[in-house]
């Protein structure tokens, strides 16, 4: 028989019981939360169908330049001679002189393929994600150019700063295993 001083006091017993209950509860909650989880994490992405090219992606990201950049689904592209992602719609002469470019950083490259088709490519190191070309392509073309969060840059903040400011609520969390919402030829994603 243990003497009185080494016996469990009521306070200790109660504390131990509550502590045990808390541990079990935390374990249960963790199990419940982790059970349906995907193997990997989640990352931010923007839905190009919701995007209205407001320009916030270029300015609101915590990175400078932004983690959002233009991407191009070539199979959707019309390979237009007069591409309004490339040319300022106000230009009268469609030459590749700098003043005729839509892109403020000259990130869009233009290459002749065959008459009358031109291929447009993006230099991602120059792109700032302002979406000016996206607006041009959506307004006059097929919408084959659109913005995407680039995961080689994105810090994956728990609360994306652009998502807070996005006027069309286009920022969503997607599984890290399929981290892009690319447009596919045929209209669906």
């Amino acid at each position: 028989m243990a003497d009185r001083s080494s016996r469990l006091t009521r306070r200790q017993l109660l504390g131990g019981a509550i502590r045990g209950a808390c541990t079990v509860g935390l374990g249960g909650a963790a199990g419940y939360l982790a059970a349906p989880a995907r193997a990997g994490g989640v990352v931010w992405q923007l839905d190009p169908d919701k995007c209205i090219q407001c320009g916030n992606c270029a300015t609101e990201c915590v990175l400078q330049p932004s983690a959002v950049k233009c991407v191009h689904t070539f199979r959707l592209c019309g390979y237009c001679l007069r591409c309004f992602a490339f040319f300022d719609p106000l230009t009268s002469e469609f030459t590749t002189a700098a003043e005729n470019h839509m892109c403020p950083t000259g990130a869009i490259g233009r290459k002749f393929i065959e008459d009358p088709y031109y291929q447009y490519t993006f230099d991602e190191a120059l792109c700032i994600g302002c979406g000016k070309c996206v607006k041009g392509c959506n307004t006059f073309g097929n919408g084959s150019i659109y913005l995407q969060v680039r995961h080689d840059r994105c810090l994956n903040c728990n609360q994306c700063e652009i998502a807070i400011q996005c006027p069309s609520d286009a920022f969503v969390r997607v599984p890290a295993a399929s981290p892009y919402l690319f447009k596919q030829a045929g209209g669906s994603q």
Partner: protein
Amino acid sequence: MTFLRRAAIIVVLLLAGTPASPGSEQRVRPPQFESPYEFPATTAPPPPSDVLEYVDLAVLLAALAAASYFALKRRSRKWLLALTVFSLLYFGFWRAGCVCPVGAVQNVSSGLFDGRYVVPPTIVGFFVLPLVFTLFFGRTFCAAVCPLGAVQELVAVKPVRVPAWLEHALGLAAYVYLAAAVLLAAMGSAYVICRADPFVPLFRVLPIGHWVHAASGNTPGGAAGISGRADLLIPTAVFLLIGLFIARPYCRFLCPLGAILRLLSRLSRWHVTITPAECIKCRLCENSCPYGAIRKPTPQGESVGRPDRLRLAGMLVLLPMAVAGGGLLGWGVSGQLAKVDYTVQLAQRIRLEQAGLVSERTDQSLAFEQSKVSVDKLYANAQAVKAGYSTGSAVAGAFVGLVVVLKLLALSVQRNRQDYFPDRAVCMSCARCFSYCPIERQRVVKGHLPVITKVN
């Protein structure tokens, strides 16, 4: 000139008609090339491997174990400080702050209440590990593992004493913040803890881990520069300046995870003690704690006796009233809270525009027009969100009411104390007080505990 350009753009846009409904039509038929042509692939650089997240989780576990060992067993402020610097570098600058255990509170709330969100297992780990360690060892997570605590611990050079009444009162703000943050995350509206976090912008100034990742992998976008959002650093500067004199202002008065840890730490199995052996009541440690966590023993020959029964009875009457009052107050402010939600904001704007009260369009209302969702559907959605907020903020308010009464209850029950001891809820296990204790000094210098002859 710019005006003319703008006018011309508008004309051109009008002539072009409505913008392409996204992805559905093709104005220009994609070409059938005659020459051999291969479509370039759209580059898709992957996110950092999630193996890294499991490494982070393992480092968190190791850091928690080390912090508990340094505080409770080794009793070394030096080692704790070294760990603090490591945590600041690793969990702060290397991981760029996200996802931290403080912010993970919201992810867990989303996972529990918002069916659209599934919490990744590593975030569950980041949430649960500090709680479990606190249940057993006290707030050793706060001591040297949390990057937000670490940066404040390192700048607390000239801490002043905050009066006890103010300390207790301000401490309640953390519970209000916790309740609001959990509610907003549960409703899927916002992660306010992250949005208002004063220290994460500092970590993003030098995203070291990101640079390493960018330098090692496939990076068509080039390495990211230093954070360009200098505006986000204003709260950082304010908190760090205050933190010079009022130690760890965020941890003590705002941190929502700290609010949870305070409750769990009361139940902790083990906890740091000021002295390694028996307290000799020399009073040297009395003013050593910058967080006001050291409680004094009952003066000699006095006894606090039994708590005032009338007062306790009063508290018991107050309890349901405070819970109901808090709930009512929460329900009252639910309309204000709901305004954080995107759908509610949008519905309000569209309502104003439809009523003709505002003429100019916002980006939000233009985006809504493009989305082709009917106005009635939007109003119905907003109504549903508001209804959710009514219930949710009533519950959150009731929780805050409960916490306030429990706080009063804890303040009115006093026990006879023989020694100086740290208040388990408030103590962050920072080990500052150790060096003030003469018994501890003897232990450190001579390598053994002194033999104490009792005077009385």
